[in-house]
Each structure stands twice: as structure tokens, then as C-alpha cells.
């Protein structure tokens, strides 16, 4: 039997006015797979992720996540988005709420949990990211690494089927990166399907199942981390890998 992909994106194009940002991207992701997306700035990595949960409306193509046609107008998009967690470079925590409040908001408003249920689930999620004791802190009282872990808790509390990470550690001081990668690694161990845009090549090497290289709105090359990093077949991939390894 052919294994069903949990993420099935086909022929995605995205135009911003005259700008053709995605030029027919196909991306299939298996359940429990960790796919790493790399590529130069402006190549369309963020836009691709944002098309998967329809934060950005693809100009054409199809996106099916966990059997739900994300682009069908009849799909309850708010309900579908619960299954797709997203973590942003800039954390985007709600500054007027505590860590607990950040995590409970969608549990109560979207998942329809009572306050008590939501609090319990949120505390469990905060515990998973190692911040059980920070539940009552506001984002302003947390370090960048802690804020990003709260943002991860906010997503996983909804028990998503897929997690999207858009440069989750790029805004962090180097000494705080490890704590976030640690949480991502433990999430991976629970079998979470993850699509990660990041420049953390060390993490990619030992955690990713597959590395996807994007350039100029297209997937140029993909394969196991070792193959992409040691033996890239395309000139553009080789140039990009060489460039980041010099840093």
C-alpha cells in the first residue's frame, strides 16, 4: 500500500503583484518525518510554509494536510489550522498575557475547552518545554529562548498533526539556541511531523530525515542530510552549502 502523505502540496505558485515568489513547488511529507528547508534569503521558504496553513493564499496549486483540502472554500480554515502548529522567528507571543494565557487562548476560543481544562492542558504543554515554573510570567519577563519555548507550547497544546517552524532560532542569542533546539528534538522523539526552515545545519545533520534546498521559488534538490551537505548535485546547492559552511 502506498503510504499517505500527511502534507501534500502540489504545484504551488504564489505571486505578490508582479513578483513571482513560488514557481510550482511540490512538497510531500510523511507522517513523523522531519523535513528541513534551506535556501538563500528571498527564495520563498517562509512563503511556502505560510501557504501550508493558508496564512498566505497560494495563487494556484493544492494543499492537503492530514486529509483536509486547505484551499477548498468549504473547509473551516480556523478548525483546520488547529492541526498545524506554527512557530515564528520573532516568537509573536501576546505581550499582554502571561505565558499561561498565551497557551490557553486558542484552547478556550478554538478548541472549546473550559478554563480549568485549558489551564491544565496549558500547564502540561509548558512542562513539556521546561517552563512549568514560568506560567505566570509575561513575555517581557522571559528570555528570548524561553519566549520561543512558550510559543512552541502554545502550538503543541492544541495537539497539532504537523508543526511548521520558520527560523525558530534566528532571533536568539547563540547561548539560547540550544534550549529551543532541545525542545524541538524532544518533540521529534514523540513522533511529531515537522517542517523546519532554519540555518542550524548541525541540527539538520543529526535530526532531519530530509533536507530540501529551495532557490528562486523552486525546490532545486532534496535528499538525506548527508547527501545534500556532502554531495550536492546542483551547482546552486553546492554554492549555497559552501557559503553557509564558511560562516
Amino acid at each position: 500500500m502506498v503510504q499517505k502523505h500527511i502534507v501534500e502540496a502540489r504545484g504551488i505558485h504564489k505571486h505578490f503583484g508582479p513578483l513571482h515568489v513560488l514557481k510550482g513547488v511540490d512538497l510531500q511529507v510523511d507522517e513523523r518525518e522531519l523535513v528541513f528547508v534551506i535556501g538563500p534569503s528571498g527564495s520563498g521558504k517562509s512563503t511556502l510554509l505560510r501557504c501550508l496553513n493558508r496564512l498566505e493564499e497560494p495563487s494556484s496549486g493544492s494543499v492537503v494536510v492530514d486529509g483536509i483540502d486547505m484551499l477548498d472554500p468549504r473547509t473551516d480554515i480556523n478548525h483546520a489550522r488547529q492541526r498545524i502548529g506554527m512557530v515564528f522567528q520573532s516568537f509573536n507571543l501576546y505581550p499582554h498575557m502571561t505565558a499561561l494565557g498565551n497557551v490557553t487562548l486558542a484552547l478556550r476560543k478554538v478548541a472549546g475547552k473550559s478554563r480549568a481544562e485549558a489551564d491544565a492542558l496549558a500547564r502540561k504543554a509548558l512542562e513539556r518545554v521546561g517552563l512549568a515554573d514560568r506560567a505566570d510570567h509575561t513575555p517581557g519577563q522571559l528570555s528570548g529562548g524561553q519566549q520561543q519555548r512558550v510559543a512552541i507550547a502554545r502550538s503543541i497544546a492544541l495537539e497539532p498533526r504537523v508543526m511548521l517552524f520558520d527560523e525558530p532560532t534566528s532571533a536568539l542569542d547563540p547561548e539560547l539556541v540550544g534550549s529551543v533546539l532541545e525542545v524541538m528534538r524532544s518533540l521529534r522523539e514523540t513522533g511529531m511531523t515537522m517542517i523546519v526552515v532554519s540555518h542550524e545545519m548541525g541540527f539538520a545533520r543529526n535530526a532531519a530525515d530530509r533536507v530540501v534546498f529551495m532557490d528562486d521559488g523552486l525546490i532545486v534538490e532534496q535528499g538525506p542530510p548527508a547527501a545534500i551537505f556532502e554531495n550536492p548535485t546542483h551547482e546552486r546547492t553546492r554554492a549555497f552549502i559552501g557559503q553557509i559552511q564558511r560562516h
Partner: protein
Amino acid sequence: MGGWDRFVETFFNAKVMAKYLPDILSGMVVTIELALLIVVTGLAAGLALALLRSLGIRPLNWLIIFIVDLFRSLPPLVIIVLMYFGLPYAGPSPSGFVSTWLSLALVLMAFSEEIFWAGITSIHHGQWEASRSTGLSYGQTLFNVILPQAFRLTIPPLTNRTIAITKGTALGTVVAVTEILGQASSAVSNSYNPSPLMMGAAAYIVLFFPVVVAARWIETKFAWKR
């Protein structure tokens, strides 16, 4: 009689003040009623317009911007006079009270719409994205995530504007509203003594000083550490 006594006799004449105190007090009641009506309806209408504008419907937004700019550029007194003396030619003849209320409410609506709008747009787009990505709807995001943050930013300019516009209730005098200044100036012409004006000034201070202090308190209460 010394200079000081004459000054007191003229500006703080006890007999005149006692006589007209009830008028000033009834003026205070009218001013309070007017001010409350203006604040509640003006701010509600301003917020409603800002929320409508956030839907991003082009022609509707042009209309909103036009209305807002119109009422921000006309002097409030002109609006009051037009409504009281001009509107009857077109049909409805609002009383002086209603003319003053609606005019100042429209002005507050216009200024507060701009302030609310600036607050809403100043919230980083990432807040929308984080909220929508967890499945909250547009409206849920607006009310739970965006507006609470926007309100905090709008409180200082909003309280300043609200206080400035509600003090404009004194303009109601020109259309025979018996608010504080109206009562005080008719008392002055009846008694040939300026003491009622002093009482009027005191009445404004009694009314507005606590509001200014409360505004300061609200500003500090709603500030949170980032």
C-alpha cells in the same frame, strides 16, 4: 475699603454667590449629562468606525476617511451652530442640548477613530499571524489579541482628546444650553457682578480635575512591561 476687600467684594461676592449657587449646580448637572453622552457615544462611534475600517473594504474606507477628516477640520462651534440654526431648514430641529451633544460626539468620533485606527495598525503583524495560525478567527483575534494591545497605546492620546472635547460643552452657551458657562454668564448679566464666573470656573475644576487625575491613573495601570 482696601484694594483686597474690593477685589473679594467684586469677584467672590458672598451674597451673589449664595444666590446663584443653585443655578451653577444645575448647570453642572447639565454639563455632566452632556459630557457623559458625548464620551459614550463619541468613543463608541469612533471605535465602530475603526473596526469597520479594519475590514479593509476600499469604498467604505474612503467614506470613513472623508467623514473623519471633515469633522476633524471643522471647528466644533461651527458644527454646533450649523446643526442648531441650519438643520431646521432641512427638517429636524434639534434642541441646543441635542445639537451640542451630537456635534461634539461627531468630533470625538472623528478624532477617536483616528486614534483607535493608529493603535490597531501599530500592532505588529506577527500578532495577527500567531493568533490566526492557532485557529482564532478574524474577530476573535481582533478582540482578544489586537484591541487589548491597541487600547493600551491609545489611552494617553484618547484621554487627552476626550477631555479637550468634553470641555467644549461650554460652547453650548451659544445655542442656549443651560450648562455651567451658560448659567454663569446669565447670572453675571443679572447681578452685574463677575462672581458667578468664578463659581463657574470652580465648577469646571471640580468636574474635570478628578477626570484628569483618573486619566493619569488609568495610563499607569494599563502600561505593562514588554
